[in-house]
């Protein structure tokens, strides 16, 4: 489309120069446009602006074809009405409502012009000049209406820079002193057209600036309407590090290594311009936001991995415990039973040896039970944290006061982490004082607090396994021991 416009413009320039004794300044200026546009179009640096310039040069120069006498009168009248149609070239690639509206307005402007002002087909003023006094007024009215329609068409064209250039071109044409019939309307409309063009450009710049400012503000508050690409994987995350679907309609800013940020710009802004309008600082902030999001995701991945490791270790421990109970222990019990049976068939001289063997088995069973009995009691996950903690408190040497307000069933890893912490803390407490244990679930977070008295210097080491579990669950542990022997262990564990 642009190529055709450039071709028309290029043809028009020598023609206009040939036909006009002294080409006006406007024609000379407009004639310079096509050679300037061609390289832009060729390198594709600013195709929209180039298309606007090309359409504008057509709009400004096409009417000069009317001075070429061999052309049929209808064609000569047509080219006079053609300038607004240059707009259609700008919107031809689009199918949206605004493009259709712009094309419709441009067509209306041309039709009004063609129907109301035809110096070649209506030489004797058959339509409008019955009364010679009214002819100039009617003509000016027609041109005014046509031009207003053309400017209105420019106003709705989606490609703002191109439309602005075209509006200026229409204004210059109307203002052209070489066209005496149009000078009055032109002198009114030219500033309007220029103002419109300037207004459109200003609006565009203002919107872009607002969009950029909004983006920067959102960036600093961590609420940027952006998603971030994880490096080396086709995964996208939001600012909080939660995984999201790959963006469809957002503008993707790429880095040499691949896509980095997908930005959702406000309506009525050109995403490419918003991106181009970002200052170096904003880009840095965007890069930072991405780094943060990626780090959060990595941390979440890592914690998920840790949780899997802990869960796998727990499962393995349970498996071993079950194997010990169902395998070795059963066999030992069975062996002891059969020793006892064998005993009844032997005389007393053998009893001492059999008794010793039985005692060995008894010791082995006790050792086995000790081995199988882990930190986490059997039934913790079935019966829930509250029941297990009451049991723990009841069996502890340390008198414990429990305040437990949590759902009967929490996620397994949360239950295990909370129990492990409280069990170790209570196991380290001195029996001289009542320990106070508070467990409360609120807003998706389990808060654990153990207040106790202890003289265990190695409490942090004792708590390290439980601290790891809680860390893997995305929570953290705080040990307040500035007021020893009074020590408070606090933990928060997300229940999600």
């Amino acid at each position, binding site marked *: 489309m642009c190529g055709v416009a450039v071709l028309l413009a290029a043809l028009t320039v020598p023609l206009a120069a040939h036909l006009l004794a002294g080409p006006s300044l406007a024609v000379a200026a407009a004639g310079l446009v096509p050679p300037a546009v061609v390289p832009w179009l060729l390198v594709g640096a600013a195709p929209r602006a180039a298309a606007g310039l090309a359409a504008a040069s057509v709009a400004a120069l096409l009417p000069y074809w009317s001075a070429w006498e061999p052309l049929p009168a209808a064609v000569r009248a047509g080219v006079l009405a053609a300038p607004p149609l240059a707009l259609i070239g700008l919107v031809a690639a689009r199918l949206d409502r605004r493009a259709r509206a712009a094309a419709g307005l441009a067509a209306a402007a041309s039709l009004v012009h063609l129907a109301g002002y035809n110096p070649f087909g209506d030489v004797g003023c058959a339509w409008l000049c019955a009364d010679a006094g009214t002819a100039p007024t009617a003509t000016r009215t027609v041109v005014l209406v046509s031009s207003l329609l053309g400017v209105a068409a420019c106003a709705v064209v989606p490609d703002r820079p191109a439309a602005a250039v075209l509006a200026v071109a229409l204004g210059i044409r109307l203002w052209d002193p070489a066209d005496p019939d149009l000078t009055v309307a032109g002198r009114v409309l030219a500033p309007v057209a220029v103002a419109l063009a300037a207004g459109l450009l200003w609006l565009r710049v203002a919107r872009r600036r607002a969009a950029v400012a909004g983006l920067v503000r959102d960036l600093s508050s961590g609420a940027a309407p952006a998603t971030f690409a994880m490096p080396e994987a086709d995964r996208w995350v939001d600012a909080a590090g939660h995984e999201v679907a790959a963006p469809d309609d957002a503008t993707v800013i790429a880095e040499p290594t691949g896509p980095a940020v997908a930005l959702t710009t406000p309506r009525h802004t050109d995403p490419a311009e918003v991106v181009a309008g970002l200052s170096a600082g904003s880009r840095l902030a965007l890069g930072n936001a991405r780094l943060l999001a990626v780090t959060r995701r990595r941390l979440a991945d890592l914690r998920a991995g840790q949780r899997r490791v802990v869960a796998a270790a727990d499962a393995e421990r349970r498996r071993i415990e079950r194997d010990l109970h169902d395998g070795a222990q059963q066999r030992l*019990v069975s062996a*002891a039973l059969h*020793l*006892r049976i064998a005993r*009844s068939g032997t005389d007393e001289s053998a009893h001492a040896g059999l008794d010793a063997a039985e005692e060995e088995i*008894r010791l082995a*069973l006790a050792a086995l039970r000790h081995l199988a009995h882990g930190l986490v009691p059997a039934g913790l996950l079935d019966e829930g944290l509250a029941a297990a903690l009451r049991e723990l408190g009841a*069996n502890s*040497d340390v*008198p414990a006061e429990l305040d437990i307000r949590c759902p009967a069933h929490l996620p397994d890893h949360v239950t295990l982490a909370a129990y492990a912490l409280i069990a170790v803390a209570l196991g380290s407490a001195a029996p001289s004082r009542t320990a106070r244990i508070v467990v409360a679930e609120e807003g998706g977070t389990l808060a654990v607090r153990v207040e106790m008295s202890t003289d265990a210097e190695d409490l942090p080491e004792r708590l390290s396994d439980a601290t790891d579990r809680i860390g893997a669950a995305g929570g953290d542990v705080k040990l307040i021991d500035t007021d020893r022997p009074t020590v408070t262990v606090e933990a928060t564990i997300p229940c999600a």
Partner: protein
Amino acid sequence: MRVIVADDVMLVRSGLARLLTDAGVQVTGEAPDADALLALVDRDRPDAAVVDIRMPPTHTDEGLVAARRIRAGYPGTAVVVLSQYLEPRYAQRLLADQPGGLGYLLKERVTDIAVLVDALRRVSEGECVLDPTIVARLLQRRRPDSPLTQLTSREREILALMAEGRSNLAIATELSISERTVEAGCAQVFRKLNLEPSPDLNRRVLAVLTLLRA
């Protein structure tokens, strides 16, 4: 005394049956799982059942569930549960509502068949028997609000032996004191645990329950 043995390991089951038979107990049936056990109890209506706590399908507490169902459905059949679990939790669950006619022994106790036979006899008479190791654990607790704190060490010993299902005479022998002293000690224990005067057997069961809940 007619008894049913339930354990999913055949060697343990048959060895146990053999030893019980040698000790003069009539073993009327052997069951490899809870369903078979309940069917046998329904058929034979035995005096007692020896039930392993871990049985198929989950190998956790099937025996416990079966024991409670037997006690609910067949009051004439007492149950001794054999357990690998030292945690008092399971004993508490077993004995929480109606401890009479129920016993909870650690599995390794079966090698001392006299203890098992004694426990079977006691539970079938409506008493409650708790494994000495678990009793010792329960008595280790030092809860300030527990009624057990008011007991003297002698009274604690008496309570422990009572919980193991020993008779006054056995307690007297064990502690090398007169049976009369044991009776006086028992009365003190009942009083300190706020157990209203009632038949001696019932109060002994309630004392064990207090110990479990303390």
